[in-house]
């Protein structure tokens, strides 16, 4: 009986998952602004989107933040993963492991508020960070993104056969050499997924950015949020469709690359 029940539930589940995305894309081409009226196919909302300077500059800022935050988070997250999995005789490993789990489950409002209050207190005490903006957003994003990178890299490291690293040691390589010659090449796929994960999370973050941002640093999610609070806005549909397109292409390309590797 399970044989028939599960596939149906799975199908319904996937329809549920993709229905809204499809509706977003379809309505980005609706000439009419109203959802109940189909005004014909049009790409005018895409034109409006690209003419909207506020959105474009916010998008560029978010991309910039995403790239920097993801890169730093990948380095820090990988270091943490190495400590948790490969380093022997480290005291307080379970505390560290608990600390890295925090950002994974903590609600954004708490992370956002707490970081903002820290920045304010630091500014009062040390004079830095002076005002809030790009720097504070970067710090905030790096902090919660590195936790995700750690999880991804940790998983790959513990699956790896450490006999290979031992073999390199045995042949005379110093531990640092072993990391760069052997470990790094072998965890590269995990590093890439970790980076992409961090990048996506950073790009998508609304709440934390809202708390720690300042004048002049408006990210894309912040712009989108202020628009959609007022209701449906088709240029946002256009933006959404573009993002879905880029992501789908990205995923298909990476899936094909993985296929080829095998």
């Amino acid at each position, binding site marked *: 009986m399970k044989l028939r029940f599960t596939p149906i539930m799975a199908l319904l589940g996937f329809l549920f998952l993709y229905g809204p995305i499809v509706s977003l894309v379809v309505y980005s081409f609706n000439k009419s602004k109203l959802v109940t009226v189909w005004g014909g196919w049009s790409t005018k909302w895409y034109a409006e989107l690209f003419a909207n300077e506020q959105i474009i500059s916010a998008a560029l800022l978010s991309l910039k933040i995403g790239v920097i935050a993801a890169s730093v988070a990948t380095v820090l997250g990988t270091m943490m993963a190495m400590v948790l999995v490969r380093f022997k005789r480290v005291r307080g490993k379970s505390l560290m492991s608990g600390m890295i789990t925090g950002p994974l489950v903590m609600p954004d409002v708490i992370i956002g508020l707490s970081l903002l209050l820290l920045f304010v207190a630091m500014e009062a005490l040390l004079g830095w960070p002076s005002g809030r903006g790009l720097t504070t957003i970067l710090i905030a994003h790096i902090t919660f993104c590195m936790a995700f990178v750690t999880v991804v890299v940790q998983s790959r490291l513990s699956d790896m*056969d450490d*006999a*290979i690293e*031992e*073999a390199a*040691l*045995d*042949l*005379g390589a110093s531990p640092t050499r072993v990391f760069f010659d052997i470990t790094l090449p*072998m965890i590269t796929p995990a590093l890439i997924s970790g980076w992409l994960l961090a990048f996506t999370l950073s790009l998508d973050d609304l709440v934390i950015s809202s708390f720690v941002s300042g004048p002049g640093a408006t990210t894309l999610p912040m712009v989108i949020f202020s628009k959609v609070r007022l209701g449906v806005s088709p240029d946002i549909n256009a933006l959404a469709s573009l993002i879905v397109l880029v992501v789908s292409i990205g995923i298909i390309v990476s899936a094909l690359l993985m296929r080829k590797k095998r």
Partner: protein
Amino acid sequence: MSEHILAAETKPWREAAAKPFVRVKNITKKFGDLAAVDDVSLDIYQGELFCLLGGSGCGKSTLLRMLAGFETPTSGSIEIDGQDMTGVAANLRPTNMMFQNYALFPHMNVEKNVAYGLLREGVPKGEAMQRVAKMLDLVKLDGFASRKPHQLSGGQQQRVALARALIKQPKLLLLDEPLGALDKKLREETQFELIRIQEDLGVTFIVVTHDQEEAMTLSTRIGVMDAGKIVQIGEPRQIYETPDSKYVADFIGSVNIFDGEVDVAAPDLMRINTAEGPVVCEPLAGLTARQKLHVAVRPERIKLSRQPVEAANTMRGMVQEVAYMGNLSVYRVQLAGGQFVRVTAANGLHDENPISWDEEVYIGWSAAASTVLTQ
């Protein structure tokens, strides 16, 4: 053949004055409360092919890893070629290891794998590649230099692992179950390859294995381990023919064990009373009357016949099972008192009426074939 002095020929362990190459002194390794290696002391001589033999969990791999530097001993010391190596890190030791699953670097080709150790030593690239080519020739892998590990068969991967370890000319080569992943035929061929390479290069090998046939074929000497301790060290022949204990006798090859107690322990006669009757053995000193012990008899030393056998020890029984193995047959005979005895006999060319099930037979063996085991 080889310009090195073969330890297999000179047998340095037989001389009291010989200086050991590897000296393991009272090594203990504890994980929590459990002692994986328990107060082991061992001397190994240069040029030996020494095997650590035992079942899983006996501590042989842990001992090997301590020699390589991947585990630090809880107590005790390790000396290699006169130098104390106890605290030295793995990458600074003059030892190299061949791992059980080979541990080849998957993202490097064969040439780069084998060259890795040389490059870490600082050997210039050109010279390193020359030596790699020579080594690949030695292990019969010339032509495979640009292949990646996943493109090689198990046997080929194993030779790359061996080449990679040997090219650094280590003082000591440690091999962890080197033939475990190979099928039987390949295993036999590779065993002789290993011996040939070892004698050619004169490197001291320490091999860990659970396969007693492998240990018997390869070794100059065997160290049998059980529960973290070494229970017997000796040349293969000694271990096989004069095992120290029931454990060793049982572990190496198949053996028949009779439990009994001393009846007569005189310089010219040694007789043990067992449930199956008296068994005559070679005289052994230091035994007391009625001392409980075991007698071990190897299956191939027992003669089997429909007619009464002339021997120091004779018994009667009924054949319960016959296994025809081609070159020999294995018989399972139940004796009068209920004990089962295993007898192997070579099959003659034209055996027209071979002994079969449910036949009454006589078995017999000499006093020399009875080994007395006090533990």
